[in-house]
C-alpha cells in the first residue's frame, strides 16, 4: 500500500525544516494538507487497485452459496453413513496379540485373552498334512451350541500316533473338551472353551479360537446367529 510518495515525503520534510527554522503557522498548514491529501490519495489508490465493491459483494455471495452447497452435501453423506451403521454387537479377534474383543459401535463391551492357531504343521506317512492356523477375515456366527461335542478329526489321531478310525466311529465323539459353549464359524472353525486355560493369550490351538469359561459364557450370551466375527 502506498501511503506517501517520495516527492511528497521530500516536500513534507522540507516544510518541516522550514517550520523548525521559522516557526511559521503557514508551514504547518501546508504540511498538514500535504499529509492529508497524500493519505486520501493513497486510500483512493488502494481501492482502485482492489476488486470493485460490487464484484466483492458478488464473490461473498457466491462463497456463501458454496458453503451452503457443501454443508448440504455433507449432511446428506452423514445421513447416509448413519443409515448404513448398525448397532449390532460384533466380535474381533487379534491373532497376533491373542485378544478377543466384544464390541458395539465405538465401545468395547468386553476384552478377553484367547488362544489361536499354533501355526505349526503335522504330516502323516501318506503325505497328507495339516497346518494349524486360525483363518483370517470376516466371518459370521453360523450356529450356537451348548455342551458341544468334539468330533475328533483325523489330525488328532495322527498327532497322537494313533490309527485313524472310520468316519462314523463313536470313538470320534468326545464330550467336555470344548467347554460349555461353542460358536460355529464354518469349515469346522469355532470359538469354544478349553481346558488349557494357562495357555490363553498364546497361539496353541489347532485353528479354533479358545476362551476361558467365564469369557466364553459372556460372549456366547451376547452374540446371536448372524453376528459378525472379524479375525485378523
Amino acid at each position: 500500500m502506498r501511503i506517501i510518495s517520495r516527492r511528497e515525503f521530500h516536500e513534507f520534510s522540507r516544510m518541516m525544516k522550514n517550520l523548525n527554522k521559522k516557526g511559521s503557522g503557514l508551514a504547518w498548514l501546508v504540511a498538514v494538507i500535504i499529509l492529508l491529501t497524500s493519505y486520501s490519495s493513497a486510500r483512493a489508490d488502494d481501492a482502485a487497485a482492489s476488486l470493485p465493491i460490487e464484484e466483492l459483494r458478488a464473490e461473498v455471495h457466491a462463497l456463501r452459496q458454496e458453503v451452503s452447497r457443501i454443508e448440504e452435501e455433507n449432511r446428506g453423506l452423514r445421513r447416509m453413513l448413519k443409515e448404513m451403521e448398525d448397532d449390532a454387537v460384533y466380535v474381533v479377534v487379534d491373532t497376533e496379540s491373542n485378544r478377543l474383543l466384544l464390541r458395539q459401535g465405538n465401545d468395547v463391551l468386553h476384552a478377553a485373552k484367547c488362544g489361536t492357531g499354533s501355526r505349526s504343521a503335522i504330516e502323516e506317512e501318506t503325505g497328507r498334512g495339516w497346518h494349524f492356523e486360525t483363518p483370517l477375515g470376516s466371518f459370521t456366527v453360523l450356529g450356537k451350541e451348548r455342551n458341544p461335542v468334539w468330533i475328533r478329526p483325523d489330525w488328532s489321531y495322527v498327532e497322537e500316533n494313533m490309527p485313524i478310525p472310520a468316519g462314523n466311529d463313536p470313538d470320534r465323539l468326545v464330550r467336555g473338551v470344548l467347554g460349555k459353549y461353542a460358536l460355529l464359524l464354518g469349515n469346522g472353525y469355532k470359538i469354544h472353551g478349553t481346558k488349557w486355560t494357562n495357555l490363553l493369550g498364546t497361539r496353541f490351538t489347532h485353528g479354533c479360537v479358545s476362551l476361558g469359561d467365564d469369557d466364553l459364557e459372556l460372549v456366547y450370551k451376547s452374540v446371536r446367529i448372524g453376528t459378525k466375527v472379524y479375525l485378523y
Partner: protein
Amino acid sequence: MRSSMNNKIVGLIFLLSLVLLGADGGDQARDERDVLQEQREVLRQRIEKLTEEQDFLLFQKEMYAADSKYLVLTIAGKTGRLMYRNRALKDFRFRTSKNYPATTFGPGRLLLTKKADEKRERRALIFGNALVIKWKRTKVPPQEADIPVISVTKKEMRSLFYAVEEGAQAYLVR
C-alpha cells in the same frame, strides 16, 4: 499576536480538511469493503474445512464397500483405529517425534506402499512419502529417513503389521 492568529487559522483549516475528507463517503465504503473482505476470508476458510470434512465422509462411504482393512489416525488426539467396513477392530495410541510434531501432518488419504520387515524388530508401514508407522525403537530404512514418522508400541506394531496389506488405505484426521 499575529502568530496566534495564524495558529487559529491553521487549526480551522485543519478541522475543515478533516470534515471534507470524511464527507466523501470513503470511510463508509471502506467499512463495507473491510467487512466484505473479512467475510470472504471467513467463508474461504469455512469452505476449506467443509471440503476436508467431505473428503473424510466420502472416504468412509467408500470404505463401506471396500474389502480391505484401513487405518484412521487422529492427529490431535494421537489415536489410531484399525477398521474394516467402518467397524473398529483395534484402537491404539501413537507418538509423534520431535522432528515431526503433530503439526507436520495434514489431513487426507494415504496409501500403504510398503511393509518393511527386513528384520522382525524393524517392521514399518510406509505410506509413500507421507508417513511411516513404526515401533519406537525401529530404525527407519535410510531411503525412508526423510518421511514423517509416528511410533506405536511393539505389540501394536505387530498386530497392525499383519492386519493391513500393501495397497491398504489410511486417513489422517486433524
